[in-house]
């Protein structure tokens, strides 16, 4: 019989504990029950603020969801533990559940501390700790924003307060931070750093009041919060108040059951995370370890790992906490690590400040100025990732070199020792990362992340992890090959640039100039890639001259190959809008050619079972009826899905169909690294599922919100917000640039979702290029899209007009009208489908005979 571990609290640390235990307890010695007060699976509280920028609660999920379907793991949500009976070794929940434990872990975290202020219970006063807090805050501000500019106030100028202020500002509220002390982030940075930080925060449009002690929160006449009154007699108007004044450990269960409690709260534990009761551990923010509670996730994760190890008979213990922190507020770079205040006896401080640029940097060194003890970086924290692991070690050369602006100082390359901690969230050392490459065969950043967990929490160590991985791969002689194939040493993005800049326009020229060997003639990887590149650098018909030899069969015959060698035909139905006449025309074509019809997942109609020799006949009929190619076969724009929108729908706020049709006609035929799909919804109800698309547009009453990087398929992703409330013209220009930037720089067969993860700067980088022209290429992209729009022609119509191109559609060169005799169909649900191998065998009595068709390609299935 296995033992029962009960975990109280379903937060970040509880998640890590369960993960670690299930990972290592291969014998199944423990079954685990997690009792969680919040109604959702453990989520990434550290990333809570991203919930404002268009992510939803599901995006915050942590780890592999499979963890919770493990038969040895039970997660009880929405039920708080109210009592611990240490004698009976049971816990009881608010809903009346009782669990007996062999070992109990308290992982109850902290709650936001609300100072005893008059008016703190008014509507419009929020704390900032859970998804529900943030959702309520967001809803409240959005509601108020409908009829005025909202004024926000944040009580507390620490890490959390500044993050909350940034979030309020992003919601459109005009925000002021009130800090009781002399400077912002006083727990992490010194006065000089705090001053530089204040300027940066002001630049975001956020007001800062220092030495500001709030005494009362006054209601507004209309109800809700109205203003704050300060101890110095000052007043601040506010419609919404976020209290970020600190946290208190949720040690109430420990107190009630008589466990030892720390002087300033928290359940006292020893270095093995055991409380004063040896059958109970406490981990995470609720634990008072080495005399203090710690409000960071990395030490919590360390405690989870120790507890898992101890439960399995291990001997690990707490090494002391790494309290390095980095502010996650876009546009404001702040980091603090080690002895940031220079409290070590004899410590020297080296400061570099550029008040104009808003930069303040300080390193704290040992008395001989050689060993790094700590630092504060404000305004430019780029050195953080590489300096933090050097804590307690000798810095090579002059430490001042590390403080100079990037590129100016010639800071020596840091060779990190193997035991240096690189990812403190997940306690991963440089050696472990190197080992992932050398011993576990990881060949890229993604694999190393999956293998070591480095960089999977706050992400601040990622630049360093990436550097280590690349260096290690290079040292191993494993060049991280980005080569397209044996014929090209360049990556697709490099080849795209080379082709664009050199202006070459044929495959032969491309392979002669940029290929690996003169005699090579390419392959099924590089040929279609070059075809796709040339399609946007020097547009021409898919079947023009040598271009035709580069196309996959789908592009070559402009239809989709099916399993039996027949093809499917998809005419464009832009935005999903089709006339009754159009439907009838499609119906008649399908009927006359005996094609199987189906509505696709992309709001249009697919006709299956067309023979190659029938394609021109079918298309002549479709073109005559006003249809054009739907490019269902191309790595190109597929569909722009729409909802019915404001024309008919009683909730619609914009004409989503009109926009979808316009976008589909604009981008039709645009060749790209992989297929591109768009969606347009007429209101926030999102009936077009636009956020599942590469580009999703959602109507607002002020314009359009545009989301990018959505994906269905094997790894579904929700698109992320790129820009809000754009007018139609700006929207179109934004999508133009986004698409072409993707076309230029993505890898072959890389959809937009993984591309955004890998492209320089991620989503923020894309936004900078597309919205702010940070690379200075916007004019170029605009021109390229204009060219695409002008050059567009229906490739099927053009083919039908050219006898030379039509010759490609013969079934056999020596018998152009004889159908492929191997095709065989059987009736099913009123239509026909390809015969299975068995069905063919049944119909083939003797081997050396002409095959007998179950139903020939031309056979009528309906009577």
């Amino acid at each position, binding site marked *: 019989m296995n033992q029962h571990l009960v975990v109280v609290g379903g937060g970040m640390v509880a998640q890590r504990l369960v993960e670690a235990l299930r990972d290592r307890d291969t014998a199944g010695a423990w079954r685990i029950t997690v009792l969680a007060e919040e109604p959702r699976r453990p989520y990434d509280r550290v990333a809570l603020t991203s919930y404002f920028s268009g992510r939803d609660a599901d995006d915050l999920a942590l780890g592999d969801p499979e963890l919770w379907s493990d038969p040895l793991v039970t997660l009880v949500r929405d039920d708080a533990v109210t009592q611990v009976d240490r004698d009976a070794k049971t816990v009881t929940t608010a809903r009346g559940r009782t669990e007996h434990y062999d070992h109990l872990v308290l992982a109850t975290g902290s709650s936001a501390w609300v100072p005893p202020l008059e008016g703190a219970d008014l509507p419009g006063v929020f704390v900032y700790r859970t998804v529900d807090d943030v959702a309520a805050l967001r809803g409240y501000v959005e509601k108020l924003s409908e009829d005025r500019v909202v004024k926000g106030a944040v009580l507390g100028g620490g890490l959390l307060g500044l993050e909350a202020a940034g979030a309020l500002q992003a919601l459109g509220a005009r925000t002021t931070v009130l800090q009781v002390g002399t400077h912002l982030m006083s727990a992490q940075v010194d006065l000089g750093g705090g001053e530089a930080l204040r300027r940066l925060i002001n630049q975001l449009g956020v007001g800062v009041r220092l030495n500001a002690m709030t005494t009362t929160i006054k209601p507004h006449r209309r109800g809700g919060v109205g203003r704050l009154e300060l101890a110095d007699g000052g007043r601040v108007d506010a419609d919404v108040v976020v209290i970020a004044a600190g946290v208190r450990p949720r040690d109430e269960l420990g107190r009630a059951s008589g466990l030892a409690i720390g002087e300033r709260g928290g359940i006292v534990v020893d270095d093995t995370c055991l409380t004063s009761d040896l059958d109970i551990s406490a981990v995470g923010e609720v634990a008072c370890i080495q005399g203090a509670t710690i409000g960071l996730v990395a030490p919590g994760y360390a405690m989870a790992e120790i507890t898992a190890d101890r439960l399995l008979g291990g001997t690990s213990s707490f090494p002391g906490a790494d309290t390095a922190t980095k502010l996650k507020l876009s546009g404001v770079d702040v980091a603090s690590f080690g002895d940031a205040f220079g409290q070590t006896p004899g410590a020297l401080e080296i400061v570099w400040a550029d008040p104009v640029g808003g930069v303040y940097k300080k390193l704290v060194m040992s008395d001989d100025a050689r060993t790094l003890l700590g630092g504060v970086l404000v305004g430019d924290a780029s050195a953080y990732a590489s300096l933090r692991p050097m804590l307690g070690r000798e810095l090579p050369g002059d430490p001042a070199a590390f403080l100079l602006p990037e590129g100016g100082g010639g800071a020596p390359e840091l060779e990190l020792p193997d035991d240096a901690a690189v990812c403190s969230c997940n306690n991963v050392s440089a050696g472990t990362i190197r080992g992932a490459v050398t011993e576990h065969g990881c060949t890229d950043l993604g694999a190393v992340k999956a293998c070591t967990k480095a960089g999977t929490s706050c992400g601040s160590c990622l630049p360093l992890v990436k550097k280590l991985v690349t260096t290690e791969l290079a040292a191993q002689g494993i060049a991280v090959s980005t080569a397209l194939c044996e014929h090209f040493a360049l990556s697709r993005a490099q080849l795209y640039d080379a082709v664009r800049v050199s202006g070459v326009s044929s495959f032969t020229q491309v392979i002669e100039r940029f290929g690996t*060997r003169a005699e090579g*003639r390419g392959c099924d990887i590089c040929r279609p890639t070059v075809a796709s590149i040339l399609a946007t650098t020097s547009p021409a018909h898919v079947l023009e001259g040598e271009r035709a030899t580069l196309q996959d069969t789908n592009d070559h015959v402009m239809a989709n*190959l099916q399993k039996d*060698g027949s093809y499917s035909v998809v005419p464009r139905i832009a935005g999903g809008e089709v006339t009754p006449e159009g439907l009838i025309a499609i119906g008649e074509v399908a009927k006359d050619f005996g094609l199987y019809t189906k509505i696709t997942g992309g709001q249009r109609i697919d006709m299956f079972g067309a023979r190659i020799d029938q394609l021109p006949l079918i298309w002549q009929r479709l073109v005559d009826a006003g249809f054009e190619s739907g490019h269902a076969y191309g790595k190109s724009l597929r569909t722009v899905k729409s909802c019915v929108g404001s024309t008919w729908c009683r909730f619609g706020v914009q004409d989503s169909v009109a926009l979808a049709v316009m976008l589909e006609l604009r981008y039709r035929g645009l060749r790209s690294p992989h297929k591109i799909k768009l969606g347009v919804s007429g209101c926030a109800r999102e009936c077009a599922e636009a956020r599942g698309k590469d580009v999703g547009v959602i109507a607002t009453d002020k314009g359009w919100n545009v989301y990018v990087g959505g994906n269905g398929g094997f790894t579904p992703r929700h698109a992320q917000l790129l820009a809000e409330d754009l007018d139609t013209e700006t929207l179109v220009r934004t999508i133009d640039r986004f698409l072409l930037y993707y076309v230029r720089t993505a890898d072959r067969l890389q959809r937009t979702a993984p591309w955004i993860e890998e492209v320089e700067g991620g989503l923020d980088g894309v936004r900078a290029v597309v919205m702010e022209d940070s690379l200075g290429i916007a004019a170029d992209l605009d021109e390229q899209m204009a060219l695409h729009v002008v050059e567009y022609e229906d490739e099927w119509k053009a083919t039908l007009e050219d006898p030379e191109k039509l010759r490609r559609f013969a079934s056999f060169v020596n018998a152009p009208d004889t159908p492929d005799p191997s095709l065989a169909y059987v009736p099913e649900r009123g239509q026909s489908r390809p015969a299975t191998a068995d069905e063919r065998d049944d119909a083939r009595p003797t081997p050396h005979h*002409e095959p007998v068709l179950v139903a020939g390609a031309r056979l009528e299935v309906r009577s």
Partner: protein
Amino acid sequence: MTTLETAVWTAVCRVQDLAPERGAAALLGSDQVALFRLLDGRVLAVQQHDPFSDAHVISRGIVGSRSVDGVEVPTVASPMYKQVFDLTTGRCLDAAGKTPARGLSPDLRTWPVRVSDGLVEVGR
């Protein structure tokens, strides 16, 4: 090649009927043959039947080349699941992780081809 044993040459089409570096199917009695005209003027013939997908599609694959033991050989990739075949020998160079259907051989049958007076003839 099996040129010596060839008894019958059948004219199939004119060379101009074949686009360079693109295949075309031809009917030879009950055999379906895939013909490929290379840039250097050579015409090669392999079976149209794709052993991996069990469909008659090889002529519709992408023509290219691959370095095999230092020699550049002309290739075709099946349009269905992208197996790569040596056009001169029919040998499957890359099974793309798949096994052929119904226990078939992964390699393609080849036919000798000659071009005379601008006519493409396939030998049997």
